[in-house]
């Protein structure tokens, strides 16, 4: 007997036969099918109980109500709140992406103290007690040395209880320097205080209007409350309302309008005055309103009839006088016409003259304090704050001139001129020792980034309350991370032109994910740590107790329904000295008010004009674009990491550029490498670039993509108001 090769063959055959009759092949085939269809490394959301939390979105000033779907303790989807007076169930792209901000990687997870050089990104974790006592000690020392007014705060908004707490803190401490980030709201508020005679926000009853003349406002691109405006746009289609868009570039809003009128950039004021001239010449204005409720009409008429005839307006604006005349007639003959301004999303202030000119159009057609017209709402009075106690140091500190110059000298009417802050600090006109940064990202969002950077270098102690590692937080000395909006209570007042005042309540949807603290609580703790007399004006145990107290009877309704609203007042109220609407707003020299705003730069060295534009897909405020939103940005705006600028084919041809070719975009403020995108919808001689790109902070989805247009654009001070009147800057495209 001998074991040979065939025995082993036989063993193998036997083994194979046995295997076929065993479950191994069949079971493994089945299991592999399951395995490959459900890779174990693919995350599967945990199952659980579904609940909804009503809250409010604070990612932009729009103030939408949201309803957040949760599965057990995890927020899984943000939807618009049905029945909310701002958005009634609608939501925008940024609002939808909010969960990526809550759970994303850019959160600051604990208080951080700078360890290396500023901006180096080296931090040490510290406790909240250490952080608060450090700030309190610094503030205490400054106050003792009589330098209380050298403390400043830049906030995203000045509405709502948290900014009010910061402002109150500065007042009690002894500093006038509470500033909010610039926007067209500054100009509207200033114009209202001049023409209506009181501190107010402008409201627009746009849904009921039937002719909307927009001077570059991005009606469907984020102007006002974005969701409300997109819905209003749809409602005009049904109601027969007409929209006319006056803008140098074919924006989405222009494309969706009944008429697009391209205009030389920055000359909108001249068109408004030209239209007013035609309306007056043809006696198309509402005589009863103009005679009965306005003042300064003759003076205004005198100016526009002499200096802004259709021919003159044509020369300035580049719009044919026939078009101007026809537009004026259409506007004045409409039943409920409204003129609005604020370019794009209204991120830039614009000149006061431009706003007063647009407002004059509204006054001429008499649609003020009427259905389908415009309103002035007094500053929100829904909060009942107890009086604070200002000691001598505080009383003296508050009287000092603000770091941004608002409220004194030439700018007596202005409340906020944060656009001037960087320049005054950089030049040493204002000394700032401590800067608080609340819900804003000035180092990214203010124009002329380099000046802002220089100014920040002069401020020895910068405290960021940001929830995210944004540009300002990275360049601060101490980060006291705030809860994100889905983790905190906060009242949300909508100041962006609704037809009635609306306050919503932002509620904690989930418990705080990290070792963060509500900025409202932090102020209370700092005050407490500083002791009397500052602490005496902050008697509340916590921010939520404070909020409940100051909201009084509205608290329960806000908790239950999520929002509170007041009916619009329809009685005409003007609190000017004449008791009427002021065309001239107290300006003696109207020609100075309506002075042209020229773009910065030498036309010979910079033959082109750079204008920024806004997009619903790119968040350009305090919040950086979340990954979901970045994904939606078109290849013609951002390709890989390259920013594309819109250029008219004729302009491109003259410079020797073709689609996709690289160029150096140079302005008096800086230069950047960009790609050229040929676009027939932009006027020749212009270069357009979106706001919101070119972040250096945040995550890999956002950082390093495109160019921050604020780095290329400077400020142009409006001599009449101190507002930043810049609408663009001179530029040149050079072959790269």
């Amino acid at each position, binding site marked *: *007997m*001998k*074991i*040979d090769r*065939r*025995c*082993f063959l*036989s*063993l*193998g*055959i*036997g*083994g*194979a*036969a*046995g*295997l076929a*009759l*065993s*479950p*191994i092949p069949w*079971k*493994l085939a*089945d*299991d*592999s099918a*399951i*395995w490959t*269809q*459900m890779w*174990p490394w693919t995350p*599967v959301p945990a*199952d659980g*109980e*579904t609940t909804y939390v009503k809250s409010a979105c604070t990612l932009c000033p729009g103030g939408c109500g949201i309803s957040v779907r949760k599965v057990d303790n995890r927020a899984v989807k943000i939807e618009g709140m049905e029945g909310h007076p701002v958005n009634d169930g609608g939501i925008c792209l940024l609002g939808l992406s909010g969960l990526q901000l809550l759970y994303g990687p850019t959160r600051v997870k604990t208080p951080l103290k700078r360890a290396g050089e500023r901006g180096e990104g080296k931090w040490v974790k510290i406790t909240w007690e250490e952080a608060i006592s450090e700030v309190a000690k610094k503030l205490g020392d400054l106050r003792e040395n009589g330098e209380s007014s050298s403390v400043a705060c830049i906030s995203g908004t000045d509405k709502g209880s948290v900014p009010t707490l910061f402002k109150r803190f500065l007042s009690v401490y002894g500093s006038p320097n509470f500033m909010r980030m610039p926007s067209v709201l500054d100009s509207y508020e200033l114009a209202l205080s001049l023409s209506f005679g009181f501190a107010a926000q402008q409201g627009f009853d746009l849904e009921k209007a039937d002719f909307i003349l927009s001077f570059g406002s991005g009606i469907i691109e984020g102007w006002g409350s974005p969701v409300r405006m997109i819905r209003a746009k749809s409602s005009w289609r049904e109601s027969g309302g007409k929209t006319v868009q006056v803008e140098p570039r074919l924006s989405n809003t222009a494309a969706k309008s009944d008429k697009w009128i391209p205009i030389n950039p920055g000359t909108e004021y001249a068109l408004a005055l030209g239209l007013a001239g035609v309306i007056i010449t043809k006696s198309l204005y509402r005589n009863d309103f103009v005679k009965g409720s306005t003042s300064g009409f003759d003076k205004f008429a005198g100016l526009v009839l002499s200096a802004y005839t259709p021919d003159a307006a044509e020369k300035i604006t580049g719009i044919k006088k026939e078009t101007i005349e026809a537009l004026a007639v259409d506007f004045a003959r409409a039943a409920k016409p409204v003129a609005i301004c604020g370019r794009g999303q209204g991120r830039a202030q614009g000149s006061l003259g431009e706003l007063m000119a647009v407002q004059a159009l509204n006054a001429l057609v008499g649609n003020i304090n009427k259905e389908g017209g415009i309103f002035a709402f007094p500053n929100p009075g829904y909060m009942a704050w107890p009086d604070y106690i200002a000691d001598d140091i505080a009383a003296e500190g508050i009287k000092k001139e603000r770091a941004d110059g608002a409220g004194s000298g030439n700018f007596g009417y202005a409340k906020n001129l944060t656009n001037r802050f960087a320049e005054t600090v950089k030049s040493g006109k204002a000394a700032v020792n401590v800067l608080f940064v609340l819900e804003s990202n000035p180092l990214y969002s203010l124009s002329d980034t380099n000046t802002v950077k220089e100014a920040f270098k002069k401020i020895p102690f910068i405290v960021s309350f940001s929830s995210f590692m944004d540009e300002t937080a990275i360049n601060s000395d101490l980060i006291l991370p705030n809860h994100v909006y889905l983790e905190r209570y906060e009242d949300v007042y909508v100041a962006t032109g609704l037809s009635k005042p609306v306050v919503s309540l932002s509620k904690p949807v989930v418990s705080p994910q990290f070792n963060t603290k509500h900025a409202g609580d932090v102020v209370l703790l700092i005050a407490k740590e500083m002791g009397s007399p500052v602490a005496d004006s902050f008697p509340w145990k916590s921010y939520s107790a404070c909020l409940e107290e100051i909201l009084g009877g509205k608290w329960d309704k806000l908790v239950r329904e999520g929002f509170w609203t007041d009916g619009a007042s329809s009685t005409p109220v003007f609190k000017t000295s004449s008791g009427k609407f002021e065309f001239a707003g107290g300006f003696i020299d109207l020609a100075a008010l309506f002075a042209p705003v020229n773009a910065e730069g030498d036309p010979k060295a910079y033959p082109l004009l750079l204008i920024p534009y806004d997009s619903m897909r790119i968040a350009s405020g305090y919040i950086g674009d979340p990954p979901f939103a970045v994904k939606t940005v078109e290849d013609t705006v951002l390709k890989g990491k390259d920013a594309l600028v819109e250029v008219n084919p004729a302009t491109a041809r003259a410079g020797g550029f073709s689609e996709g070719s690289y160029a150096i975009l140079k302005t008096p403020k800086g230069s950047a490498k960009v790609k050229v995108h040929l676009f027939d919808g932009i006027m020749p001689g212009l270069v357009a670039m979106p706001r919101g790109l070119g972040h250096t902070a945040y995550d890999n989805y956002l950082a390093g993509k495109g160019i921050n247009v604020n780095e290329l654009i400077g400020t142009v001070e409006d001599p009449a108001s101190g507002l930043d009147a810049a609408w663009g800057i001179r530029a040149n495209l050079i072959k790269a």
Partner: protein
Amino acid sequence: MSTPDDKTKGVSADTGGEDAIASFKGVDEKEQGEGPGGFVILFFIIGFVASLIIGWVVFPKLLYSQKRQPVDFNHALHVETVDNGCESCHIFREDGSYAGVPKLAQCADCHQEVQGESPEEKIFVEEYVAKEKEVPWLVYSKQPDCVFFSHSVHVKLAGMDCVTCHGPIGESTSLKPYEENRLTGYSRDIWGKSMAGIKKNSWDRMKMDDCAECHEKETGRKSSVQTDKDACFVCHK
């Protein structure tokens, strides 16, 4: 005509031929007497039996890991003390959705303190209730994520009994070990305890065919042209 070469060849061919035959015969004889034939069959049987043993005995042990539940729960004991059967603890939420395994809060309603003498209850109270930590129960009936299954429709609308799919688990006094498929991560109860797929009770197996069989019987629908059964998207949304 022949050359010496040819001769040689011829002779050698002759003798060679005989030798070859002889040697072939020799081999034949050897094999019949003491060849490896028996071994071939023996090796076949060894291979065959070994494969079967590996396939039926070793393979299941390798494929499935045995895990113990964090707390050995006594269903029978609890069913006795509640009024509403399974639904007393395995509740349907207000919106009609099924909550599945009870959450800690539900258990803690009664078990805030140790009530009996069971060591398992002591573990439960001390390790989970006191620390407010959810019990990481291992769910025998968890279906792959690609399957959409609504308890509400089956129990509330179709009036099915829990036992039909889950077996008499309410009568058990302790929890059996959870056998996790090392490849897919799902419980052995889905394929069934029997590797051969033999099914004596309706709850013995919970594969797609078992769902389809019942759907066909109960609904009468054969809307899928491909499978002649209920449509795919009824469960695979």
